[in-house]
């Protein structure tokens, strides 16, 4: 199996070297290099297309604001794991908005770091527990906020009924396929329409199209 190729980016070169040493001690990971300045990152990534860039969030400050985008442009398959010293909500959220795939604290253990690299390499996201807490808080805020999407207020079952209704199935058919009574389907339909603020079948279908629940 090929080793996971990791490029380490940190302004403190001995921190970066220390991280490399930790990574090299793991037989599934290969630390392929170190970058200490924001300006060099995109070029280095383009040259060596690492599987993962492990980068300190301090690199994204000031001039480095667009650095994550530039990494993704330089090598679209490269995944980005951020390390942060401080659990700064703004920075963490900004990192994800710009396209990073995970965030770990610098005080995490080496084992945590290895786990994070494997998780991100396998297509998942890694959220260090305290960062996961921050992100869940953020998520709940947008779920309940003034711009909340009414679709999110539907229960999973209502979402299912909405989809089948929009597909044009009759109440009786839906009742049979979802193992519920026709009256229950009618009740669900009324509740769905109330929650979404639509008033007839046509608007319901249009809504489902816009949400890509059904395709033309």
């Amino acid at each position, binding site marked *: 199996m090929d080793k996971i190729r990791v490029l380490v980016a940190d302004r403190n070169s001995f921190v970066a070297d220390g991280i490399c040493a930790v990574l090299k001690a793991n037989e599934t990971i290969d630390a392929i290099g170190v970058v200490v300045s924001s300006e060099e990152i995109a070029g280095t990534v383009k040259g060596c297309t690492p599987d993962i860039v492990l980068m300190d969030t301090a690199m994204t400050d000031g001039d480095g604001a667009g650095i994550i985008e530039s990494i993704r442009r330089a090598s679209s398959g490269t995944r980005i794991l951020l390390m942060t010293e401080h659990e700064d909500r703004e920075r963490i959220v900004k990192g994800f908005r710009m396209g990073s795939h995970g965030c770990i604290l610098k005080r995490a253990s080496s084992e945590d770091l290895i786990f994070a690299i494997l998780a991100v390499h396998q297509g998942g996201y890694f959220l260090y527990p305290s960062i*996961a807490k921050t992100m869940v808080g953020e*998520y709940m805020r947008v779920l309940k906020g003034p*711009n909340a*999407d009414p679709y999110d207020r539907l229960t999973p079952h209502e979402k299912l009924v909405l989809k089948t209704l929009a597909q044009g199935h009759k109440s009786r058919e839906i009742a049979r396929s979802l193992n519920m009574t026709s009256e229950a389907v009618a009740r669900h339909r009324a509740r769905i329409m109330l929650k979404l603020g639509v008033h007839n079948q046509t608007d319901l279908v249009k*809504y489902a199209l*816009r949400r890509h629940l059904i395709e033309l």
Partner: protein
Amino acid sequence: MKYPCRVKKCFMNKISVFLADDHFILREGIRSLLEKVPDIEMIGEANDGREAVAKVEELLPDVVLMDITMNGMNGLEATRIIKERHPSIKVIILTMHETDQYLSEMLEAGASGYVVKTTSSSELVSAIRSVYQGDVHLYPSIARMLVEDYLQKVKIGEEKESYNGLTAREKEILRYIADGKQNKEIADLLGISIRTVQSHRTNLMDKLGAHDRTELVKYAIRKGIINL
């Protein structure tokens, strides 16, 4: 993939864990696994949600491991009730799948962790310790769902805000552009000069962060300004 077990320095208080799952073998497996962990103690089990709620009420564990799909009362309902009555009890959801349609509901109900049943034992132990300390543990594929869904919702919210920042005239022009009308037609329809239409259009794209007509049309469809 092995999740690192952090060694707890202090074993004074064991973390008491309760397990609700309707699969006997899974309960057996988790119990024998947790028995080997010095700072964790299994204090009870339940076969469904109703039994879990009743026993948790009596045993008051630190952490509940909760299966989602159980006969009778499911894990979501049971989590809601437990968190309502005892906000300090932490709940970790055990799920069969790498993605989960109940994620937002579960978090809203107060769950602090999500672990896929195929996970390594070291990750489960680490999850228990994290939530006990008041943090959140999300299995990587679930973390990905959360971040992606979050970013999508933020984007929708921002679009809504940017739309509210448009003037009535700009909204009108956006609708015409999305309908496929050319600048000249729009100018004639509104009785204004082409130049004015152009400058409205530039402002619109600026405010909405769109770079060309296609992006404006896509935006209008998402917003429901034009119907498909």
